């Protein structure tokens, strides 16, 4: 499903309102709340839609998006322009926080200290960090980007977003993808099971045509089998001391159960062997593996020993074309990868800052367009007023001359506005530009909403 693009017509329709609207975010995540609390404030898809609908109906926000994953629940809203200053002054975020707790039937005290809120640039930066996986429990995880996309698409499809959140989420999805392609934050395996599968691919390439054998029916073995299945492996056998449990696992991973006593017979077939069996003695001895390798003509075999104590004799690593990895080896790879991912954070943050500047430039563009429109309106009114007041002095003029005076006055207004308009359209020196917008607004008395 393609991500929708914000309608430029819609964005142009109310530039003044959009320019002055404020983005507000309220939420809890794995850093601020324990899992028991996160469970209580989670939104399923229906809840999210209902919350967005109620928020907009209550006029608390004009646009709303709810993101809810196992590690976070966040509500993004756009406080309308006409009430933005008041709402913020009166604690717009607090009102949103109140809604957040009330929606889940909790008292505000229950969430006390667990809820965070951000506004405008801080809210935008937070969303960008979330989409990039920098705010995730597992740094750089890929799933969050899909979850942000899904939350936005649902809100968009139901009409709960507008120009501001459309632009904000478009930017978030863009930066989420960019961080993953331009940094290594999401490239390396972060779980032992996934590291094992990646190693298998490094040896065999695509796993579709290869065979796997799972020894034992434990959780780790099952997890690895599921990963192998996800990577296209279709022929997976399971051997367990208890055939019944082996059958259970084989059914779960769409594999085939083999009797434990047949191990020496079937060992020559698989390219990947996962050993995760209880017991003190190794189940794969060097002799057994050597026999299997001989029978399979020394084709490469990847043996993953997840057992503690070890299920595979260390000497197996010396057999030609056998690659042996223990759980410690895999854990070490994961740790290395965690460090490597953490080193990518500054690069990712720099990209986010760049994206934020882009978003701010868009907001500044809206503000300057709104300012110029208001200024032009104000000057046009002044012109009409001026011409009305001096109508008597021009009564001797022919109608076409009076019309020419009016036209010249209009041209004078355009000339006066030309320079500030050109300067405000420039993309550089954003901060100065924003200051200029505010200064002009004050100078011409257009800041009636300001305190």
């Amino acid at each position, binding site marked *: 499903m393609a991500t929708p693009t914000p309608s430029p017509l819609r964005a142009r329709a109310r530039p003044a309102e959009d320019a002055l609207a404020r983005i507000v975010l309220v939420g809890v995540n794995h850093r601020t709340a324990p899992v028991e609390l996160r469970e209580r404030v989670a939104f399923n898809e229906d809840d999210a839609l209902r919350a967005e609908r109620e928020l907009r109906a209550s006029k608390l926000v004009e646009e709303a998006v709810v993101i809810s994953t196992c590690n976070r629940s966040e509500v993004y809203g756009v406080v309308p322009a006409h009430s933005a200053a008041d709402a913020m002054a009166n604690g717009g975020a607090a009102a949103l926080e109140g809604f957040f707790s009330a929606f889940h039937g909790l008292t505000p005290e229950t969430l006390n200290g667990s809820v965070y809120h951000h506004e405008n640039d801080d809210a935008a930066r937070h969303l960008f960090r979330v989409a990039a996986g920098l705010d995730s429990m597992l740094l750089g995880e890929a799933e969050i980007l899909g979850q942000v996309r899904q939350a936005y698409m649902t809100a968009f499809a139901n009409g709960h977003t507008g120009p501001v959140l459309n632009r904000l989420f478009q930017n978030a999805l863009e930066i989420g993808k960019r961080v993953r*392609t*331009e940094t*290594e934050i999401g*490239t*390396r395996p972060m779980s032992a099971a996934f590291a094992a599968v*990646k*190693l298998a*691919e*490094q*040896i*065999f*390439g695509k796993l579709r045509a290869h065979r796997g054998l799972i020894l034992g029916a434990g959780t780790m073995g099952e997890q690895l089998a599921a990963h192998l299945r996800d990577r296209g492996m279709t022929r997976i056998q399971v051997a367990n001391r208890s055939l019944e449990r082996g059958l259970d696992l084989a059914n779960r991973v769409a594999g085939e159960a083999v009797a434990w006593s047949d191990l020496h017979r079937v060992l020559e077939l698989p390219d990947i062997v996962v050993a995760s069996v209880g017991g003190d003695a190794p189940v794969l001895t060097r002799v057994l593996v050597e026999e299997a390798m001989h029978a*399979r*003509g*020394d*084709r*490469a075999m990847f043996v993953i020993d997840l057992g503690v104590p070890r299920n595979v004799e260390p000497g197996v*690593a010396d057999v*030609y*074309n056998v*690659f042996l*990895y223990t759980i410690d*080896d895999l854990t*070490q*790879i994961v740790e*290395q990868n965690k460090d*490597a991912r953490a080193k990518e954070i500054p690069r990712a943050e720099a990209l986010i800052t760049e994206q934020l500047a882009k978003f701010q430039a868009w907001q500044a563009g809206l503000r300057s367009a709104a300012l110029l429109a208001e200024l032009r309106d104000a000057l046009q009114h002044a012109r009409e007023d001026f011409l009305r007041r001096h109508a008597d002095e021009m009564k001797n003029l022919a109608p076409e001359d009076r019309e020419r005076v009016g036209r010249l006055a209009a041209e004078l207004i355009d000339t006066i506005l030309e320079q500030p308009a050109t300067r405000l359209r420039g993309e550089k020196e954003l901060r100065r530009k924003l200051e200029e917008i505010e200064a002009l607004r004050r100078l011409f008395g257009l800041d009636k909403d300001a305190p």
Partner: protein
Amino acid sequence: MNSFLDNLVLAFYVVSLGLHIWFLYTDSRFIGRLGTLCLAGGVVAHYFALLSRARAMNSVPYQDFYGSLSLFAWMLALTYLVIERFHRQRAVAPFVLPFVIGFVAIAMFLSPEPAAVQRTVAHGPIFALHVTINILAYAAFALSFVLSLLYLAQDRWLHDRRISSVIWRFPALDVLERMARSSAIVGVCALSIGMVLGFIWEHRLLGHYVSGDPKEIVSAVVLLVYATYLGLSRKTAWRGARACRLCVASFFLVIFSYTVVNFYWSSYHRFF
């Protein structure tokens, strides 16, 4: 030999190397494509550079060592490009392109002007094809050598559980092995055709076959060794590191044939 075209060739190859290294570091598909595009640009520009030299000499530029090196570099780049497209793997380029750049640079800066090259009596399209195809064979063998070395390095890292960040970018062992084999197949086919053309030309020129020329004997041995490698690498017991070691060892015979035999042993092949 410092024409604009030669500089352009070198620039294309250097930029392509830089982009491929960047690709290896970032895994950006866009950068990888750009690298391949630059390499293709380099191959095309190199073709025209060789063509211009060939026109100036009125012969394929194999008459001197440097011209032959440039032709070899072009064949290497071309073979690599084909293998890269065929196997859809870009990660090997940073290990192949330095050779291409090195050979082109030597040819550019040390090669005499075409007019200064001493001509041999050898000429004619069959002879030109014979030499060109043999150089293609050497380039293909060089590529299979680099690929086999990469296989052995990665095999060692995986066995020793030394998993650095770069390893995830490399092609799988299985893919590297297939790439090395594909390259060796190109080499064997090219060398066989090149040798046959050599015999035909020899017969036309002299009216008989020269027996016992060291170059012919060594080339036949090279052919035999690579044919053995191709045969053994398909047998399961030889798959993997063993076959790659054989491929690496075989290439030393190619270097021997290209240098010592040409320079000192063969009276019929004392040109390039």
